[in-house]
């Protein structure tokens, strides 16, 4: 029988009764956040320069999670995906860190003199290349364009998520159409702006280094970890009955496939960047990898290859593992941890460029603890007010019938 299109007045409320998330979740989040913030403050008092690098690491991590989740939402609308509809609200909850990025960037603006060698006028005065770059890398322009980019992300987040939530109560199909248009506009803007943002905050830390593929690298990271957090939360919520009873293992399959695809995509992009610069061996390019190969960084780089590509690849290759909740939970936690390592690897070796010496410090763990705590707190706080399923979405009924 051909499946009948769900009517406008159709709701799935019968399948879904909202269950409150356990109190322990937000308690855990607050505990982590408070511990993290206290430790971060301690590390800031001990060494403000070092702490600003750690803060940037955590910021990039949060940015990847927020943007990756919003990207997943907009992908679902643009592609007209059916399987992912029950998980869309989870992605939206993770994207709720985007408004906070606007707040959290303020301390970064105040620590720019620690982060960037080009903030030092003596360095710039002695170098023609830097002088030529100052028309782009000057503080007012830098600050303005990054705030504009964050505002644009926040705007799209606000519009898309507002429409999606409105649909829960008014069941208006036109909101889906509006969101499709918004998402189609967001994706190219996102691709362009994430490049600029990563060029500003990560690439300009390494003097004279440039890599045109770098924005794509950050995009690959963002999408990868975005899918990982969504997978982790979706699988945990479904297995504990928060998303209704109609989600099958078939729905998990594409979550696993997304993580698998972006594992390979990251490897492809990271290797493309590495191979060209390794083969060219030009002093201004290879310095980026030299800093990531000196001393103990050699082992971090090698661990990154294994943890970021080989382990998730091997775990996700078998078809069954993409529908196995235990493997999905394990791999997504692995991915989130590895993503933090990747942010760390992107930021920390660049300390050398600004005259600091890097040595491992236990206080580096302060920032990831705070970041994870913040995400859990935000998730729990927003989830309290919202349905965990987009119950007004016209594609929801078709999504229940989805199978491989």
């Amino acid at each position, binding site marked *: *029988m051909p499946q009948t299109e769900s009517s406008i007045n159709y709701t799935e409320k019968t399948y879904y009764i909202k269950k409150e998330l356990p109190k322990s979740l937000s308690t855990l989040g607050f505990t982590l956040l408070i511990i993290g913030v206290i430790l971060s403050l301690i590390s800031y008092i001990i060494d403000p320069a070092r702490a600003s690098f750690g803060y940037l690491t955590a910021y990039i991590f949060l940015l990847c999670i927020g943007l990756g989740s919003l990207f997943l939402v907009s992908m679902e609308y643009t592609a007209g995906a059916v399987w992912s509809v029950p998980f869309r609200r989870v992605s939206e909850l993770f994207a709720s860190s985007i408004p906070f990025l606007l707040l959290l960037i303020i301390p970064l603006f105040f620590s720019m003199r620690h982060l960037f060698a080009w903030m030092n006028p003596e360095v710039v005065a002695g170098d023609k290349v830097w002088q030529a770059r100052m028309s782009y890398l000057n503080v007012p322009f830098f600050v303005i364009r990054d705030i504009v980019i964050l505002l644009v992300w926040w705007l799209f987040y606000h519009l898309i998520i507002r429409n999606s939530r409105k649909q829960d109560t008014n069941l208006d199909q036109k909101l889906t159409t509006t969101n499709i248009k918004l998402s189609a506009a967001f994706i190219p803007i996102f691709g362009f702006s994430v490049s600029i943002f990563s060029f500003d905050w990560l690439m300009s830390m390494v003097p004279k280094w440039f890599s045109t593929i770098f924005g794509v690298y950050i995009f690959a990271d963002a999408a990868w970890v975005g899918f990982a957090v969504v997978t982790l939360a979706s699988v945990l919520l479904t297995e504990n009955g928060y998303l209704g009873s109609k989600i099958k293992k078939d729905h998990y399959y594409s979550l696993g496939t997304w993580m698998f695809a972006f594992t390979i995509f990251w490897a492809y992009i990271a290797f493309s960047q590495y*191979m060209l610069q390794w*083969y060219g061996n030009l002093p201004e390019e290879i310095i980026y990898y030299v800093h990531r190969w000196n001393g103990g960084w050699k082992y971090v780089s090698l661990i990154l290859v294994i943890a970021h590509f080989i382990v998730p690849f091997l775990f996700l290759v078998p078809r069954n593992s993409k529908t196995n909740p235990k493997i999905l939970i394990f791999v997504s936690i692995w991915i989130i941890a590895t993503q933090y390592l990747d942010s760390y690897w992107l930021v920390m070796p660049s300390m050398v460029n600004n005259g600091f010496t890097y040595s491992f410090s236990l206080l580096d763990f302060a920032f990831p603890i705070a970041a994870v705590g913040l995400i859990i707190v935000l998730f729990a706080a927003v989830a309290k007010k919202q349905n965990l399923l987009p119950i007004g979405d016209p594609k929801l009924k078709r999504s229940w019938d989805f199978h*491989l």
Partner: protein
Amino acid sequence: MVDEKRLFGIAALFDTPDEILHAAKKVSEAGYKNYDVNTPYPIHGIDKAMKLKSSKLGYVTLFFGFFGASSILFFMWWTLSINYPLVIGGKPYFPLPAFVPITFEFTVLNAVISTFIAMIAIVFNLPFNSHPLHDTNYMKNVTSDKYGLVIESEDPNFDEYRVSELLKSLGGNSIELIQNPERKAIKVLEPKFIIFLIIVAGITAMSTWWTLNKFMYLPPWNFMSNQNKGSAQAESSFFYDKHEMREPVNGTVARGFIPYAFEGVVDTNEFYSNPLLPTKSVLALGQKKFLTFCSPCHGNYGEGVSRLHGFFPAGPTLHSARVIGFSDGKIYNIITNGQNGIMPSYAYQITRDERWAIINYIRVLQRAQNPKPTDFSAISEINKESGNASN
């Protein structure tokens, strides 16, 4: 009539995807194992309804993927690091990052081709290249708008009557008995013929090898290629420095090459005379080379007005009484060795014949500045001739 021994299976057609899902479920519940479903497009959930186990084909892909990766890595390691080590771009003998793209491509190629071959080998039962379902009414329907199910006779529970009844009860129509095609043994693959082929191939290979490597070197043949001689790049067992290739004896002159005795001698009283006559082609060559090499400094007409606008010292005019008085040999010597430390040697840019041609052309330029009365009458005669010719 239906031949019991050659029965492949019983097929039925269904009208909708829901019916085929239902039928597949019931057939698997009835305990049948060897059956298949054919649909015009993939139907979601059919593998669950059929209780299919996951395909084993992936293991073929996995094995040949690993095989491809390791074999190409071994190949590149052996050729570029062991057998003929080459330094390329200052990279180590085993530049792993440079090998990654090739390894990747070869892995994919190997895995895909072997999966494809394994698939058709299993489905068609190679060397046969068709399936019993081909060319049946059933196949015509399931490739356009019907959904088909076929229960094969190999199934342990197979019973012609009960299977047809089951399919009918599930709503299947146009029940069809499908025969195995008469598979005659393929003559080319008979053992006798294959052994014969192997023997012929062996004899041909051995006799060819013996003819080319042994027989042709027996007397009375005496090939020029097979002589006692040094080979340019080979190692010598005779010379002390082990080079077969020797340097020429001092003073050796190449064929067709006349050395210039005053190379590097700027001031000399002995000169050669011009071996070239001022013919049309020589003057054309001289003009071309003069405009290329001489005119930047000496000017297009040798008038000493340089095109270099003072970026390089302007050359002197070639129309002075002094230059007109130079012998051809002296000008040749100047072009070859340079002069005054400002004009460099053009020995490497301008060949010997070209130098003499340039000198002929300079003489023409000089004559054009200081014509003799007879030249005018000669020119007017030439003009008259060409005028007549054009009329």
